[in-house]
């Protein structure tokens, strides 16, 4: 029986619990709602939750437990002799699962009877042919030991599923009975529903927290592994980045960090003034009509996927810059060799960040009380004096926060850099040179054919950790600034 059907049964029992408990609560007071502690549907929900929640929780836990248990006991069935050179038990387990799933499909499509599937043997039957006929392609003929393992895998899975069904329905029935029994006029059903509501919300909030922790730990462990293979001193202090998958790479983070910071700096130099000025225009000068039209339009920029910005950098901005700064260009200087450069990526990234800065700043500037503007205008200051000397200083903490958030976006940006900045890790002051960033190198180190256990691949995690620490630091500073000065004008 599949999980979906089981889930539907549990939900059905839950609905039944609702009707029963609600009915019992109402009949216990002769239909007079006001004699109940809670409104009738709370009794229903309370019993319903008692029925569904433990059963579903058991289903989930059982699902994880069973697959782990079955995997490890089946893995023991595979003899060491069946493991060929260069293979691992893990890879063979993949085969086992594929064959087991294939047999399931064959049974489902009627190519095999379920008895036959359990008793197939490599000598007597053409397993590859049978499975091929139902659309499961195997690379080679099946090893007898693997087939044996696959068959016992199927057997264990199916008995596990039966046990699970019994256990889950049992728990649901127990919950239903308990919920029904405790329903009485004085039972505080509303409080119990509120409590479960609270736990549901806590669970939702924990998902984000635990995922973050999980990501951080997986990066930390891989980073530690990397530093066991490659000295941390060289990683942080070496000025050369030249990975070679044959070994003997130099993996200094410095050129990548330089590229990241240089590009982010140019991006911020574009985005901060433009974004801030447009925010000031929109919040202080624009008529409501212009504002209603321009603000959404500006925010559309934020919705463009960064890969599209990357294309824009590669196909439009890069060649344009070469026409101006390149060999034979308008300025007659030869600063720029190719279209991909720090300047290209920085400019385009700056455009990407404009709505980010302007939208946040606009909200912050709007939050400055009108009384402050009136006060300044009432003293005979002009609108621009008012903005420069009263509104912006009052909004400054928020604006700084917005800029730092934009900076962490810039530092973490990947696609624009991959397409716009080039791939050469180099330390140069010339903004028209091609450079690369931490993020772009994480992509290139992990998307090759490299052995995952080599320092050349694992360095990606150390890079990711570096990036994570930098952006986390920026976010913490941003939050700190915003919090410290938030109430300044209140």
């Amino acid at each position: 029986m599949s999980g979906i059907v089981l889930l539907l049964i549990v939900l059905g029992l839950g609905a039944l619990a609702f009707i029963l408990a609600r009915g019992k609560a109402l009949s216990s007071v002769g239909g007079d709602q006001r004699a109940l502690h809670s409104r009738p549907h709370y009794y229903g929900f309370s019993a319903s939750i008692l029925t569904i929640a433990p059963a579903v929780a058991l289903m989930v836990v059982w699902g994880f437990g069973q697959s782990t248990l079955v995997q490890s006991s089946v893995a023991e069935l595979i003899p060491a002799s069946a493991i060929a050179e260069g293979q691992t038990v893990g890879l063979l387990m993949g085969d086992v699962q594929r064959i087991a799933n294939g047999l399931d499909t064959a049974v489902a499509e009627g190519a095999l009877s379920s008895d036959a599937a359990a008793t197939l043997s490599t000598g007597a039957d053409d397993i590859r042919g049978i499975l091929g006929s139902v659309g499961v392609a195997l690379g080679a003929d099946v090893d007898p030991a693997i087939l044996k393992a696959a068959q016992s895998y199927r057997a264990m899975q199916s008995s596990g599923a039966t046990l699970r069904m019994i256990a889950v329905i049992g728990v649901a029935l127990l919950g239903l009975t308990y919920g029904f029994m405790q329903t009485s006029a004085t039972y505080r059903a509303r409080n119990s529903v509120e409590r479960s509501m609270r736990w549901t919300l806590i669970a939702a909030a924990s998902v984000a927290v635990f995922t973050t922790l999980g990501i951080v730990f997986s990066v930390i462990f891989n980073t530690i592994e990397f530093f066991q293979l490659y000295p941390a001193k060289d990683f942080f202090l070496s000025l050369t980045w030249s990975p070679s998958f044959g070994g003997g790479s130099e993996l200094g983070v410095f050129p990548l960090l330089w590229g990241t910071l240089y590009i982010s700096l140019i991006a911020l130099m574009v985005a901060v003034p433009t974004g801030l000025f447009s925010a000031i225009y929109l919040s202080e000068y624009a008529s409501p009509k212009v504002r209603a039209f321009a603000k959404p339009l500006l925010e559309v920029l934020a919705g463009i996927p960064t890969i599209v910005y990357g294309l824009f950098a590669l196909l439009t901005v890069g060649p344009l810059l070469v026409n101006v700064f390149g060999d034979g260009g308008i300025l007659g200087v030869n600063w720029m060799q190719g279209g991909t450069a720090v300047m290209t990526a920085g400019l385009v990234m700056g455009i990407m960040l404009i709505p980010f800065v302007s939208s946040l700043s606009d909200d912050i500037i709007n939050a400055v009380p009108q009384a402050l503007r009136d006060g300044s205008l009432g003293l005979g200051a002009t609108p621009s004096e008012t903005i420069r000397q009263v509104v912006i200083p009052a909004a400054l903490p928020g604006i700084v926060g917005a800029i730092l958030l934009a900076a962490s976006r810039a530092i973490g940006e990947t696609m624009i850099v991959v397409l716009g900045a080039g791939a050469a890790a180099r330390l140069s002051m010339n903004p028209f040179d091609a450079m690369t960033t931490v993020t772009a190198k994480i992509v290139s180190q992990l998307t090759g054919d490299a052995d995952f256990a080599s320092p050349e691949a694992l360095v990606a995690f150390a890079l990711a950790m570096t990036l994570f620490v930098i952006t986390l630091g920026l976010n913490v500073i941003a939050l700190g600034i915003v919090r410290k000065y938030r109430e300044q004008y209140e």
Partner: protein
Amino acid sequence: MDDLRYMEMPVDQDTKISASNVQIYYGDNQAIKDVNVEIADKTVTAFIGPSGCGKSTFLRCLNRMNDTIDICRVEGTIKIDGDDIYDNAVDPVQLRAKVGMVFQKPNPFPKSIYDNVAYGPKVHGLAKSKADLDVIVEKALRRGAIWDEVKDRLHAPGTGLSGGQQQRLCIARAVATEPEVLLMDEPCSALDPIATAQVEELIDELRQSYSLVIVTHSMQQAARVSQRTAFFHLGNLVEFGDTSQIFTNPQDSRTESYITGRIG
């Protein structure tokens, strides 16, 4: 009501502001209907009337603060020292330097006490040097009757003061630009009785040098601080005259109803 001081103050000053046939509209809504009023120099003029009667709107027209509201439209003429302030040649920024304003809620800038007061003089270039500015700031704070309380912490934030101190700081800030007229929009409505008394005392002192116009909800306050009183009702100027006469012998039945508490 023995705190009424109006009896001692005869009014025979020159006219500072004269408004004739002023109509003010918010969109299609007429907020002020055909108001004529003459406001004397070196006198406190109080605008009283029930909420929504247009007294604040009219006050804000006297230094064109309503310009910042898009839908607001003013007709008629308002003259200060004989010059029409709605003339095209008049820059509202210059006008506001001459006609200062204090608002209902104390609104110190999120700057130091010193910078709050120095703001106006800096904007208008009134000080030639830092020493000049120090003198101006001290003088303004003294006239704002707050110097003794803040002289030791001029560089503390103005927002850290108490409500009454903040309002006196705002008055000092308005005084620092040397205006000729000071408009006050319910300056004491956010203050406790002690702070109110301090601000009222201050208003009485400022009368020596300025023409003051004060909007107030409190009739006792109007009686205490003003020499002339204008009663607004539903956008009309119902009655305008010496405070003593308005409070003891109102000519219009609506004025009488309002000051005796029957309408409000």
